[in-house]
Each structure stands twice: as structure tokens, then as C-alpha cells.
């Protein structure tokens, strides 16, 4: 299966701007399905972005983050060609991780 994470990271003037989209239902646990049953909460809890083994951004998310969550952040100290690791884990213990190269 293709990665659940899509990343674009661009360095300009010493600042890396990272945009990521994660494929995830982010079910809040407040919504009913068409049959009237509550869809149990299923959402990403933690997403981390690491550069050279150092975490440069940590997001703790709750179920109020939209389906297929989007994140944009900016950090210093990385250069074009550097690798970034983006990882997430959800409330069911499912997780995924991907590597991206800074352009």
C-alpha cells in the first residue's frame, strides 16, 4: 500500500517549510454512520517530524482535527537534500512513517 503520508519540504533562505497531508479518517466518536451506529473514535494522536534524528516538530492531535489532516510548519538548520522523517501513531496503536527529501 502506498504511504499514508505525503510531504513537500522546501528550503529557502535557511528556513525549511514543510507541508504534509496524512490519510486518516480522524473519526471523532461523535458521528453516527448511515445505519445509526456511532463510529468509534479513531484519530492520530501524535505526529512527529525529525531532521537528522532531532525532532523539529511534535503535534499532539485530538479528534477535532479534520479528516486527512494537514500540517504546515517551518524550521531552521536544514539544507536542500537533507532527509526528514515524518511519523504518526493513532489511538488504536496504528502507525506509519515516511522519509522526505528537502527540495
Amino acid at each position, binding site marked *: 500500500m502506498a504511504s499514508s503520508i505525503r510531504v513537500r519540504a522546501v528550503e529557502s533562505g535557511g*528556513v525549511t517549510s514543510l507541508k504534509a497531508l496524512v490519510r486518516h479518517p*480522524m473519526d*471523532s466518536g*461523535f458521528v453516527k454512520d448511515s445505519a445509526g451506529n456511532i463510529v468509534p473514535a479513531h484519530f492520530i*494522536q*501524535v*505526529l*512527529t517530524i*525529525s531532521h537528522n*534524528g*532531532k*525532532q*523539529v*516538530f*511534535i*503535534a*499532539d*492531535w*485530538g*479528534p*477535532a*482535527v*479534520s*479528516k486527512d*489532516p*494537514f*500540517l*504546515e*510548519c*517551518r*524550521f*531552521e*538548520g536544514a539544507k536542500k537534500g537533507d532527509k526528514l522523517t515524518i*511519523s*504518526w*501513531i493513532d*489511538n488504536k496503536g496504528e*502507525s*506509519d*512513517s515516511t522519509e522526505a527529501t528537502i527540495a
Partner: protein
Amino acid sequence: MIDQTRRGFLKGVLGAGVAGIALGSGLIPLRVEAAPDASNWSKKAFSTPGVDDTISELYGMEAVESDKISMDLPTIAQNGAVVPVTVETSLPNVTGIALLVAQNPNALAATFEIPKGTLPFVSNRLKMAETTDVVAVVISDGKAYKATQNVKVTVGGCGG
């Protein structure tokens, strides 16, 4: 990491047991494994209604209004399921940002740790059930600051 984040952090550790403590010994653990650690995810803060209670649960203090926090979000959301929210601040030494949606069943939508070298900027997309205040909290020099902006959420989505 600063006391405020650590406070929430330690709570998580208490709940999570040994694995959490092992991680807690290195504040920025060098991890190569795929899955991030969710043991310090604050269940309590994420299940608290109301902005002020949530901020105090999260950071153990009250936040004061600041005009140095800028929020970019629509005045009228075209759909409450996907509302883009961007926060940026000129406050110094920022270590954390949180986004709260006042009228949601639980106010806290997201918290972000901002390590040194990362800019105090974040953009997310959030769900809002109804017209609401959105509050951005910024931890700067160990103190909590906040800014508020209202979003009108209307029942839209013409056609099935």
C-alpha cells in the same frame, strides 16, 4: 523542555508507566523507530470542555491576551468539517502552541511542541460543530498567551 510542557508530560508518564519513564530520561530522544510515542498524549486535556479549563489543564496556568499572536482563519467557514487555521507569533522563545475550539464538545484540537530552531508558526485544518471562537495559545518564555477569533459556521453544502 520547559516546565509547562513537562507538567503535561509527567502526567502522561504516570499513566504510561515504565516505557514513558525510559523516554522521559532523554528530553529529545533520538529515535529511529517508525512509531512516535503517544504515552504523553494528554487524554485529560483533550477531554475537557471549555477554553479556560483546558488551558489550565494543559499548562497549569491562565493565558493572557496578546496582540502579538496572529491568526489566519475564515470569517465564515465554507464548511465546518475543514476550517484552515494558521497561527504565527512574534513572541520570543516559543516552546508550544495550542489550538482550541470553544464550542466543540472538548475544546482542545491540537497542541504543538516547538523545539529551538523551529519557527513559531503552524497551520492545521480543524472541525467545528457550530459558530465558535477559536483560541490560539502560545507559550513564550514560560508564560501562556492567547488570541481569539470568531468563525461563523453555517449549515451549508447545498445539494446531496
